[in-house]
């Protein structure tokens, strides 16, 4: 267990615009190992939803199987959640989203859950541009089955039992960009100041939002020689930009030097204010994003932050031209053609 949450709360704990304090967004006590990166990501999700004044019941949490996929039990206990089967969260999220386009769909998965057993569903949910947030808690191993290498383990990385991974790793962020995801970011469980604005933007983005979060497994993959350990990640992390999420109708406060500032306008009036650390990178250009990722990789760096964004992509509902009114609210009146229509159908079959 990562921490024992104090039961006493200060009565004047800060409340958000809805009148909820942050604990309203928490979940059950975590049963993950103390220090597990996944718990920090859960905390970032809690903080994000609190700060964004989201009604928890407007969120549906979905996951596959793994330590990472257990986390939806540990955040947002006032939201419905669905812990499905290993590698198949995308399909459940797709069906749920088709049924009700008005909720926010927050999918959580692991690197095993996404890059191995669930690779098929992952690439297809990206292609369909389902309007959801998809977070991979990436620790380079299968935590829940005791530390086997996953498909995101870097070639040459050593795990706790001393095994060196011989296979090339799958770079999920590059893949998502390649497949046309409208929002792709990378982050580190230990960097909440970066992760929270990224999740905020992901929630606001209309379409598929992907965040690959390096999230060390303290029990099986935090050793010397591992490229997913806390130490290794801290030493090799680089960011594309610092990022400020500016909600709709808010003033932009951060001021950066001319030339390093980038600004992305979102469909609902929110915007992103970026202070670019690498001048050649353009967040709205796929080629430039791919280039930045590959260049970082060649230098042995882990590139984090926003990688790519297309604020105007068409999501699956738009492509299928479904009703704006959620399908799960339609009744017999709208759905059933009725007995007279059936009489005509019968007549056409004689």
């Amino acid at each position, binding site marked *: 267990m990562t921490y024992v949450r104090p039961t006493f709360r200060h009565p004047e704990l800060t409340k958000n615009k809805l009148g909820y304090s942050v604990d309203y967004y928490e979940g*059950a006590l975590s049963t993950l190992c103390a220090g597990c990166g996944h718990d920090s990501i859960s905390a970032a999700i809690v903080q994000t939803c609190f700060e964004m004044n989201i*009604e*928890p*019941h*407007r969120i*549906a949490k*979905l996951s596959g199987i793994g330590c990472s996929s257990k986390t*939806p*039990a540990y955040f947002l*206990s*006032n*939201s*419905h*959640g*669905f*812990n*499905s*089967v290993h590698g*198949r969260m*995308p*399909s*459940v*999220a*797709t*069906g*749920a*989203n*088709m*049924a*009700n386009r*008005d*909720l926010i769909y927050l999918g959580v998965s692991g690197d095993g859950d996404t890059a191995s057993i669930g690779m*098929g*569903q992952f690439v*297809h949910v990206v292609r*369909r541009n389902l309007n959801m947030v998809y977070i991979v808690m990436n620790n380079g191993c299968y935590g829940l089955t005791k530390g086997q290498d996953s498909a995101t383990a870097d070639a040459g990385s050593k795990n706790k039992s001393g095994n060196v991974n011989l296979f090339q790793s799958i770079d999920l962020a590059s893949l998502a960009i390649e497949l046309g995801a409208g929002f792709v970011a990378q982050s580190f469980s230990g960097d909440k100041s970066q992760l929270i604005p990224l999740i905020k933007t992901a929630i606001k983005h209309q379409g598929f939002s992907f965040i690959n979060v390096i999230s060390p497994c303290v029990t099986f993959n935090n050793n010397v020689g591992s490229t997913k350990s806390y130490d290794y990640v801290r030493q090799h992390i680089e960011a594309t930009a610092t990022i400020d999420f500016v909600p709709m109708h808010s003033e932009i406060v951060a001021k950066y030097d001319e030339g390093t500032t980038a600004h992305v306008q979102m469909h609902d009036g929110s915007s992103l204010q970026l202070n670019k650390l690498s001048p050649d990178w353009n967040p709205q250009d796929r080629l430039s994003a791919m280039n930045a990722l590959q260049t970082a990789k060649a230098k042995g760096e882990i590139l984090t932050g926003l990688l790519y964004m297309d604020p105007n992509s068409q999501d*699956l*509902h738009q492509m*299928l*031209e*479904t*009703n*704006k009114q959620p*399908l*799960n609210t*339609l*009744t*017999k009146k*709208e*759905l*059933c*053609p009725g*007995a007279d*229509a*059936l*009489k005509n*159908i*019968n007549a056409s*079959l*004689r």
Partner: protein
Amino acid sequence: MLTNETKVNDFVVRFANVNGTGSASANFLFTKAIFRMGIFVTPKNIFPSNIQGLPTWYEVRVSEKGYLGRREGVDLVVAVNPQSFVKDVESVRPGGYFLYDSSKKIHPELIRDDVTYLGIPLTDICSKEYTDPRQRQLFKNIVYVGALSALLDIEFNVLEGLLSDQFKGKEKLIPPNVKALQLGVEFVKQNFTYPLNIRVERRDLLGDQIMIDGNSACGLGAVYAGATVAAWYPITPSTSVVEAFSDYSDEFRTDKETGVRNVAIVQAEDELAAIGMVIGANWNGARSFTATSGPGVSLMNEFLGLAYFAEVPTVLIDVQRTGPSTGMPTRTQQSDVMEAAYASHGDTKHILLFPSTPKECFEMTAEAFDLAEQIQTPVILMTDLDLGMNDHLSMPLEWDDTREYKRGKVLSADELDQIQKFGRYLDVDGDGIPYRSIPGTHPSKGSYFTRGTSRDEYAKYTEDSDDYRKNMDRLIKKWNTSKKLVPTPFVYQQQKQSEYGFIFFGTSTYSAEEAMDMLKEEQIKIDALRLKSFPFNQEVENFIEAHEKVFVIEQNRDGQMRSLLMIELDSNPQKLISVLNYDGMPITAEQIVKQVKKNLTLSSTLNKVI
């Protein structure tokens, strides 16, 4: 031996064509004409797993008495595919007819002296009449339909009527088609004595019956039941279920001006994803379904276990085909009974429905949604290729406008407000069926975490053995409740009339009923029960109990339904005799009679020995 006895409204015609040559619509024209003359008719497509080039057959049975099963013994073959001539000549019954394209001389070895040969130079006629190669090909089919109309006494104006219905809006296609029909008629008139001793005569036997395939009826049933999300992966013979759903959705669910749709249809990347989407949508309060065949059901197993254990309504249409594996993918069977009943790992059982007519396909699809939501579990509609892809006579489809969708125990925001503490898996009513809540319903009440992992009544994770067992026992209680909700079997006799009984289901029904008549003519009376669902209810148990011997008729090798009866009802295996056909063709009454009589004579000689 030549039989010269005239047979009116009682014969089988078999068309031997090449796949992809446009024969399907001509052959359907033939069937429909007999239908419009008020006579029972049943066509069966026997087609290869191929798009173009391989042999394909279309068998049409005409029956004054109303028998709709397949019958052995072909009276007339229409052979337009030289590739299959040898087999086709063989298939004609002694005294029957072989109509063929005589543009090329037939090989002398193919001449049987107990068959009448009707050579029509179809290719020559069309080459002379048409210039466009495609037309030459297509109209060959229409020419033989014309010839058949003269040979079998089909009313010409009925054919004309069908053509004008078919080409409504494309009227200029009518005259060339009529012309092709006439070419066939003329040739017969000049060359043969007609009509043949097999022929049709107008009747009024059909009332207001319609002709439709089971898959279209299923797709329409899903529209009527209010399904809004369909996810699927193409597989024969199930594909046309979702295609029909999609076509009817274009008609009834799409705003004609804006194009906005009250439906979402997603072609998934595989069957795992398809069923996952269905589960996600149903969890979120929409009615959702998928259709597949045996291989797809195999892939869906893990998810079906989740839906069973997490209690998510799920509707799955299994259009069975000949397995195992790819088996004979375009042939029929009833061989997924076991796989569907117990799909998934751990202790799982699923509700199965067995339609036997298109009307039941329509009704039971609609009912599947009610049952899935009432019982909060997967419901699998077990149809098959024969029912799904062939056109069948059917009573008209019916819908009662006062019928409401039975959405089951779903809590509204108001109801949640009135509850002290919501327990997703609490057995409040004592029937094993808990209450569920849909995401987004209430700001602060009713949220819970759905999972396949064991949990307590409040959906809280637990590995406590007592909690786990209690939940599994409640699921069985729910199963028992479902016995009262699923459709009851159809029992043919009010009172017991025989020591022998038949149990059958689905498409075995047609031939089983005919077999009962045939046996009756030989003074062997049989009682019968048609299964419509699993779990079996008391009536099934009573029926087996009451009879000395029960023949379980089904279309698979292993007698799967017989096994299921034994497992679930603890029936005496000695009592249950399998009557089977598993060659990929629909079972026939002759096959049933033969197997039943063999068993009865065997046991009577045995009795004598004892």
